[in-house]
């Protein structure tokens, strides 16, 4: 089976800084994968390369066998680390906007999730708290029926209760044919829902494994192993 995401000797330099320093990686379909690394390790750069917001200095990144571009954006649902939605729009307007823009957008699903979170679709974005804005954004991203979800720090700004809801949203919306890649450094909160983990440091992969393998072989949680590998 063709990997949904593949990196071949992928490199990205910013001046003399090697943000991504030669990564080889294959991610299969139907997995929830944690892209884990300390601040500045290259997580966001990889995700931006996958969305063609950046172009590689050398090497290749392929989505479902294709270079990132218009075609791959149809099958990739991306949650950036920063919000890009227009503040003056209401949630409802944004949902209409998304459903015009993406053919795989499921409005019914979006309204359903809003209801469960007690968010009023008529509310303007500018009137929402930071945490609620993040929730709306995640709802929009997860309401697409994409093959690959790229979530950059989806739980950074929300309280622990909302974190649980967000993780639940991810579990209940992903299906066997899609892959979710979550970049984060909040490992203990998400390791229960991950299949695989990728540890990256200084733009290089230091470890790839499954969560249960790590626990089996090392007798410790992914969080504990992370603290050990990345000890300052």
């Amino acid at each position, binding site marked *: 089976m063709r990997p949904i995401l593949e990196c071949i000797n992928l490199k990205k330099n910013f001046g003399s800084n090697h943000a991504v320093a030669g990564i080889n990686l294959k991610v299969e379909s139907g997995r929830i994968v944690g892209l884990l690394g300390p601040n500045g390790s290259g997580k966001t750069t990889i995700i931006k390369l996958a969305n063609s917001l950046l172009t590689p200095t050398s090497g290749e990144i392929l989505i479902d066998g294709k270079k990132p571009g218009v075609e791959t954006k149809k099958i990739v649902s991306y949650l950036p680390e920063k919000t890009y939605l227009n503040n003056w729009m209401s949630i409802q307007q944004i949902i209409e906007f998304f459903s015009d823009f993406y053919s795989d957008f499921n409005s019914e699903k979006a309204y359903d999730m809003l209801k469960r979170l007690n968010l009023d679709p008529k509310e303007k974005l500018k009137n929402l708290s930071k945490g609620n804005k993040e929730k709306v954004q995640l709802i929009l991203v997860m309401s697409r029926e994409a093959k690959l979800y790229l979530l950059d720090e989806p739980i950074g700004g929300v309280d622990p209760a909302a974190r649980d809801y967000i993780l639940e949203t991810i*579990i*209940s919306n992903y299906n066997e044919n899609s892959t979710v890649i979550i970049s984060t450094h909040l490992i203990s909160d998400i390791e*229960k*829902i991950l*299949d695989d983990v990728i540890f990256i440091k200084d733009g290089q992969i230091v470890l790839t494994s499954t*969560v*249960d393998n790590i*626990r089996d072989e090392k007798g*410790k949680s992914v*969080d504990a192993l992370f603290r050990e590998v990345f000890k300052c």
Partner: protein
Amino acid sequence: MPWDLKSDRPIYTQLIEQIELKILSGEYPPGARLPSVRDMAQEASVNPNTMQRALSKLEEKGLVVTHRTSGRTITEDTDMIKQVKYELAERQIAEFIEKMQFMGFEKREILTLIAKILEEMK
């Protein structure tokens, strides 16, 4: 019984143990239908693939039966459930005795102590 997952052991083995306990305690009675993998995963807040793996192992053991069209049920073989229950009890007791012996108790002392505490609990 709520799901309680520790962070230092594989998740799927913990799921197996906890589903076993739910079966032995009667929370999932013999022949009962199990919720879907997705619902169970959501309830335990774990990855559906991990829940699937745990259920497959229970299927291999024979405690859970998969039907082609109507999902999964708990086995109706009450003898098997009883047997698993005894196995679990034996393991628990062996662990307990090991600890007691480590503390320096003789077999006879352990028995007397158990009898005494059971008496007091009445």
